[in-house]
């Protein structure tokens, strides 16, 4: 079974803080993704990575950056958290086919 884990299920941060969300997959997948999910907006792609140290912007990259130093780990960084970044953050991975496998999500609240 593919396993995608995320470092925290719930996180509360203050405005202006730097926030790190970690994602690890154990299936040697090349591709990894970060989404945010908001009511009425579905899943929106923030960034994805198709290999170590490689990254591509998704639909809503503003205010975020990513890091992929190892194949199994993909980090999402909020340089200076703002209240409009309060959301559910979902990490996913895939190998060759289109199916993506998701982690359990991190519910981030920025106050």
């Amino acid at each position, binding site marked *: 079974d593919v396993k995608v884990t995320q470092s925290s*299920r719930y996180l509360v941060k203050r405005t202006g803080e730097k926030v790190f969300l970690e994602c690890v997959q154990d299936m040697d997948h090349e591709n990894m993704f970060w989404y945010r999910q908001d009511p009425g907006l579905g899943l929106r792609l923030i960034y994805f990575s198709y290999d170590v140290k490689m990254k591509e912007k998704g639909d809503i990259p503003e205010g975020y950056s990513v890091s992929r130093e190892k194949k199994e780990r993909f980090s999402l960084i909020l340089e200076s958290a703002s209240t409009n970044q309060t959301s559910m953050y979902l990490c996913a991975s895939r190998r060759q086919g289109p199916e993506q496998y998701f982690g359990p999500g991190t519910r981030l609240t920025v106050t």
Partner: protein
Amino acid sequence: DQQVKQNSPSLSVQEGRISILNCDYTNSMFDYFLWYKKYPAEGPTFLISISSIKDKNEDGRFTVFLNKSAKHLSLHIVPSQPGDSAVYFCAANIIQTGANNLFFGTGTRLTVIP
């Protein structure tokens, strides 16, 4: 611009009856479609998919129908069970270009009433 649309935010169905969830898309390049199911506080899980060369794919109680001319797909759940209550997302991909990312709809919350 939303390329994959789920126009019904919610749907309620009696247990044992059929649930039909709908999805429309605008990009004729999409050649692979997926349905995901999401429970609260969990990540989406893959449910069923269909390639654009087919018009139907069935897996147990779940069937996906694709109408390419109408750019429409639907997920049928028969019979519906209370455990099916979740948010369902439709997603699309362009396999022929090797595109990495999926395009997701906004989701439909299904409630199955016992």
